[in-house]
C-alpha cells in the first residue's frame, strides 16, 4: 500500500476546443482521449448525459451534434470542436417541459430513467426529420437506444403523443390541465 500524494505532477497533452452547448458558446482545454460524454458530464456538469455502456450499444449518452443524434461515448470531445451540441438540459423552456418530455411523462415512458435522456434526444432527431412517424419509423429511429425497464410500448405512445403535440404547437404551459395528475 502506498498513499503518497503525488497528484498534479503528471501532464497530459491537451487541445483547445470551442463549441456551442445548448446555445452557449464554450471554450475548453481537453485531453484528446477524453470522451465527449465525460466532457459534458464532468467538465460541463450536464449529468443528463448518461453513460450506460461506453461502447456504443445502449444509447443512454445520445446527444445531438449539429442536429444529428450521436453517441457521446463514441465521440471524442476534440471531435466536437466547432459543433453545436444539444443535450436534454437544453429542452425545457423556462421551466416548461418540452413536448417530448411532457409526453414521456404522461405516457409513463420512463421508469428508472437512466435511458430517458438518450431516448428523448433520439426522439427529437426523429421528429425533427419526420414529424409524423408511424410505428415502423419509430422502431427504426429508436433502435439504437436500449431501455431495460419500460418494454418500449409506452415509448411508442410517447413519441406519437409528442408528434401530435408538436404538430398542434401545444406545450406544457399551454395546457391548462397539464400537471393535474402530478402529485
Amino acid at each position: 500500500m502506498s498513499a503518497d500524494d503525488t497528484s498534479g505532477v503528471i501532464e497530459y497533452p491537451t487541445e483547445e476546443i470551442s463549441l456551442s452547448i445548448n446555445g452557449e458558446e464554450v471554450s475548453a482545454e481537453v485531453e484528446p482521449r477524453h470522451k465527449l460524454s465525460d466532457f459534458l458530464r464532468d467538465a460541463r456538469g450536464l449529468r443528463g448525459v448518461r453513460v450506460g455502456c461506453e461502447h456504443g450499444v445502449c444509447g443512454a449518452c445520445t446527444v445531438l451534434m449539429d442536429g444529428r443524434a450521436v453517441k457521446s461515448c463514441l465521440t471524442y470531445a476534440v471531435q466536437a470542436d466547432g459543433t453545436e451540441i444539444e443535450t436534454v438540459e437544453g429542452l425545457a423552456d423556462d421551466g416548461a417541459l418540452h413536448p417530448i418530455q411532457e409526453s414521456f411523462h404522461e405516457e409513463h415512458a420512463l421508469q428508472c430513467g437512466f435511458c430517458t435522456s438518450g431516448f428523448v434526444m433520439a426522439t427529437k432527431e426523429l421528429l425533427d426529420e419526420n414529424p409524423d412517424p408511424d410505428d415502423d419509423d419509430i422502431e427504426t429511429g429508436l433502435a439504437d437506444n436500449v431501455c431495460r425497464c419500460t418494454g418500449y410500448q409506452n415509448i411508442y405512445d410517447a413519441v406519437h403523443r409528442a408528434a401530435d403535440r408538436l404538430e398542434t404547437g401545444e406545450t406544457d404551459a399551454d395546457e391548462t390541465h397539464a400537471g393535474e395528475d402530478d402529485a
Partner: protein
Amino acid sequence: MSSRPDAETGPESDPDAETGDEARFAGRGLNRVEDRRILTGEAEYVHDEAPDDALHMALVRSMHAHADIESIDTEAAENHPGCHLVLTAEDVKADYNPMPTGLHGFEEWSLADGKARYVGEPVAAVVADDRYVAEDVVDLVSVEYETREAVVDPREARENEVVVHEDVGTNVGDHEELSFGDPEEAFEEADNVIESSYSWGRISGVPLETAGVVADYDRDADAFDIDCNIQLHTLVDDTVYETLGYDPDDVNLEVPPDVGGSFGTKIALHRYCSLAAMASKAVDRPVAFVEDRIENLQGGDMHSTQREYDVKLAVDDDGTFRGLDFWFVDDFGAWPRYPVNQVLKPLSVLTNAYDVQDARYEYDLVLTNKTCQTAYRGFGVPAHLYALEMVVDEAAAELEMDPDELRRRNLVESDQMPYELPSKNVYDSGDFPAALAHVQEKIEDERDGGLLDPETVAEKREEGKYRGARPTVHIEPGVSGSDWTNRQRSDRDELDERDREDVAELPEHLRAEIREDGTVRAYLATDSSGQGHQTLVTQLLADELGVLPSDVDVSYLDSVEAPTEYGTAASRMAVMLSGAAQGLGETLAANLETLAAEVWDCDEADVTYRDGGVHRVDADGSLSLAELADADDDGDLTRASYDYEHPATRLEEFDEALARKFPVYPTAAFAANAPIVEVDANTGEVEILKLYSLRDCGTQLNPTIVEGQAHGGLAQGVGAALQEEFGYDDSGQPQAITLFDYRLPSIENVPEMELDHTETPSPFTATGAKGTGEGGMIDGPASIACSINAALEPLGVKADRIPFTPNRVRERIREREGE
C-alpha cells in the same frame, strides 16, 4: 412491427373511470412525481455524486478463470505520478475482515487472496486522480499467475475433479432433498411417468446503470459515509460494516433518490462499497468508483442463476397430474454470494397453478469458475416455471392430449382458495381457469382471420415459417418473508423442532411529519430503482390524510436512521408500503386529534380528523395541518412512524411454512399468457408477433405503474427466452462481456403486448394489493417457450433450452432432420 394501439389506448389514467370514487387517489393512474427531475437531467444517480475533491478507484481484475496468484508487483503503479494508492489482499487482510458469504465455511476477502476463481475477480484496487489515470495505473500493476484447469459445467462440477475451493473440498456447497405428501406412491401408481431434462442459461437483469459508490471516511468521527446504488441498503448493510469491522452506526450507507434499475442484481455491491471505504480511509479523501460495462458484465457479481433440470411428472391416462419431481443443479459461480440463494423460492410456487399434492424437490448448489450469482427479478422462479411447463407440454404430446385441455383439467379452482401447496405456502385468491379461458379466447379470435388464421399459417409454413401459440397460467409469488432466507445457514435438523414463536419477520417502516406550511413529508426506509415508490406513497398518504398529492413529498432514510428493513425485493413494496401508509395515516390522524383536543381543551371524542384537518364535532371550528403544526411545540404529535407487519405473521395459514423455514409468499398474483410466435426454420429466428396477457395483482394501487411493471417484466422475459445469456467457454472465459454479446432486447425485439387486468383483492393484505414487480419476467419465458413448442410441433422440436437462440433452434431442427 406492424400496427400498435394508438396513444389514447395507453394506460388508463382517468381517475373516475377506475374507482368511481373521486376523492381517492389510490387506484388512479397518477403520473409519477419522479419524472420531472429525470426528464430535465436533474436526477441524481450515484454516477453523479463524486465531490470535486474525490479520487477515483479502478480495479485490477483476473483474466484467468482459475489461477494461483504467484506475485503482485505494484511498484510501477505506485510510481505513476497520478497514483495515490494500490491495495492488495495483503493490505485488506491486515486491517479488515472477510466479506460475509452465503454459506458457512467460506472465507472471501474483498480482493482475491492467493487464488483467482473467475475471470473478472478483483485482484487489486488502485486510486488515482481520475478514472482515465486510474486505468493507466491498473495497467502498471503486474500480476503473475499460475493457471489451473477451470470447472465450468455445473453438472460436471459435482464430480469434484477440479475443486474451486480446496479448503472446502467439494464444489457442492449445499444439497437438499425435500419430499411433500407421498411422491413415491404417486409415481408408482400413476399410469404414466413423463421425464425430461431442461437447461436454463445464465441470464440477468443488466440494469442500464452500472454499480457506483462514493465513500468518504471521516477521521474525526472514525466513521464512513457511503453513497452507493446498492439494493436493500438497510438489510444488507451488514455486508459492508462487518467487512470493515465497524459498528453499524459508523457506516452510513445512503442510496441516491434515483437508481438506474436493479431488478435484484444490485444487492451484492458490498465489495465495491468496502473497497472504496478502505481506500478513502487510506488516502483521507472521498473515493469514487463507477463500474464500467465490461466489468459489470464480466465480473460484476450480478449474473443470475444457471439451472440444469431433470423433471418428472406422474400423470394418469385421463390427464390428472399425480406427482411432480424436480431435480436440479444451481450454478452459484465462484463464491456463495451473501445473502442470496435462489433455490428455495420456487417452493412457494412448487406446482404453479396446478392442483398437485405430492412432490419431490432436490437440488445441488454448486460452485464453478464463473462470476458469482446474485438475485434477479423472480429469484429462481422463472426457471422453475419453465421446467414445469415444459414437462406438461411433453406429457400432452405423449398422451396425445390437447395441451390446453390438459392444463385446464389440473388448474386449482377458485373455490379451492385459499389453496395450500404441498410445500405449505398458501395462494390467497384468484380464478386461474377464468384467466386461462380469457387468453384462449384471444387466440381463438386470431384463428378467425387473424395472425393464426389457418390459411395464413399454412402459407407461412410454405416459406418455412412456423406459427403457434399456447396459453399458460403462472403464479407470481409476492411479498417475501425474510426468516426462511437463511435456511442454508440453519441447522436443518433443528427446523423440525421450531415453534412459530421462533420466527421473526421484518416489517416495512414508514414515517412522516407535518411541516409548518401544512405539507406532509414522508420518509421511506428503503431504496427504489424506477418502481415509483415516491409516487405510490404520495398518493396513499394523500388519501389517508385527506390532502392533495402535491401537499405530500417523500424522501429516503439512510442505513443508520432507518431500522433494519427488508425493503425493495420480492414484489413487496405495493403491499408493504400501502399497508404502512394506511397505518401511518391512521396514527397521524389520531395524534392530530389529541393535539387539537389539547388546543381546544376539550375531549378527544369531540374532535375528528377529516379532509386535511381536525374539526370539532360539538361546535364550529377546525384546525388545518399548518395550524396544527404551529400548535405542536415539541413536534411530538405531528410526527409519527408506523411499521406494517409482514402479512404472514398474523395468519395461521402460514404457521407451518414459517416454522419450518419454507418460503412464505402470502400473495399469489397471477397471469395467463398467450404469445403468438413465428419461428423461421431457415434462420432459427423466433419472432413474437403479439403477446396477449391477462394479469391480476389484486387491488391496483396505480394502474399506470402496474401496467409499466408488466411491460418491463415481459420485455425482460422476451430477452431471457430468446437472446440473453452469459455464456462461458470450456476454459471459463466469459463470452458476453459487452452489450454486443449480451443482447438486451431493443425496440425491435419486444412485441406488441395486449394486456388485460382483473382485480382479485388479496384477503391477506391491508389494501388487497398483491405484488407485481417481478411478473412478466416470471411468466414470460415459460409461456414463450410453450408457444415455441406449439409452433414447432410439426417439426418435433421442443424449446428445451433457455434462451432458445437462433443457433439452438437450428441445431434442434438439424438434429430432427438427421434422425
